């Protein structure tokens, strides 16, 4: 079992407790801002600052409600033999410590290239292992912090050549709209033609 300081444990538990109330990242940021002076009193003052339900927060901390999840994360980190912060894993290649951008980019490019040459359906899985790693982030590929930023991302499955050609069925998708709600391509089936226009990125010349 990996050891860790009580401060690390308490700050991790505090992050989980804040997560329960939809404020994981807010707590995360405050904890980093206030490190290294993070005793229980400071942690509670941060929770108060975030407007958390304090009874619920304190109960979660006192009962160590999330200790099991924390332990699972630590076990996973241990299994992966991860000892540096940050450690990034891209398709099985581990990049230890903070490295130049180019190193990450190379690995991602390599992973993408391997993916597009795969015969079968493939996955790009990247795990971001930092100080805190809630288990739900990798358990089902879903987001944590109340649906905001997933840490473990199963990328879309790719076929060997997935060029979309004239005469083919358009791949279906659902995406959130800036005007609110979600749009699903197949909802227009039988009703409307659709023009899908990809732009490189916002704030680039249109």
């Amino acid at each position, binding site marked *: 079992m990996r050891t860790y300081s009580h401060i690390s444990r308490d700050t991790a538990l505090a992050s989980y407790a804040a997560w329960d109330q939809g404020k994981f990242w807010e707590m995360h940021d405050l904890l980093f801002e206030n490190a290294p002076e993070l005793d229980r009193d400071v942690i509670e003052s941060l929770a108060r600052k975030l407007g958390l339900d304090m009874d619920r927060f304190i109960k979660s901390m006192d009962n160590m409600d999330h200790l099991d999840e924390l332990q699972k994360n630590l076990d996973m980190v241990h299994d992966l033999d991860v000892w540096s912060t940050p450690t990034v894993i891209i398709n099985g290649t581990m990049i230890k410590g903070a490295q130049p951008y180019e190193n990450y980019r190379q690995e*991602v*490019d390599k992973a*993408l290239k391997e993916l597009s040459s795969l015969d079968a359906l493939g996955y790009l899985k990247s795990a971001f292992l930092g100080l805190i790693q809630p288990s739900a982030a990798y358990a089902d590929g879903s987001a944590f912090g109340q649906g905001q*930023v*997933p840490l473990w*991302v*199963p*990328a*879309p499955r*790719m076929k060997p050549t*997935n*060029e*979309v*050609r*004239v*005469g*083919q*069925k*358009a*791949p*279906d*998708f659902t*995406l*959130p*709209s*800036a*005007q609110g709600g979600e*749009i699903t*391509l*197949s909802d*227009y*089936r*039988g*009703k*409307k*033609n*659709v*023009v*899908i*226009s*990809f*732009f*490189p*990125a*916002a*704030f*680039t010349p*249109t």
Partner: protein
Amino acid sequence: MSAYEELKPRFAEMDTQVLSVLVNNLPTLQAWSRGLNTSFPVLSDFWPHGQVALLYNVLRSEGVAERAIFVIDKEGIVRYVDIHDINDDPGMNAILRTLKEIESK
């Protein structure tokens, strides 16, 4: 984007929905589309990053999408594809021509 807006009545006549897809996150797209005053849905393909762009094979390795247009008919069949020069404006004529073809069938 503004070209689509100008042609809004034409698209309506031709039973056509325009969807813009960008790899940026929602707040960015909200700020961006507000500035452009667009009435068509602006969709965020941010996370997992560029998954729809990947699905259509138009995600570049630097993380942005190609300037690409797909016209899809009511049966969900792709009728026109243009992976355009990223620095060039693809214009509207080819899209309108495709829609007319679809209409005439």
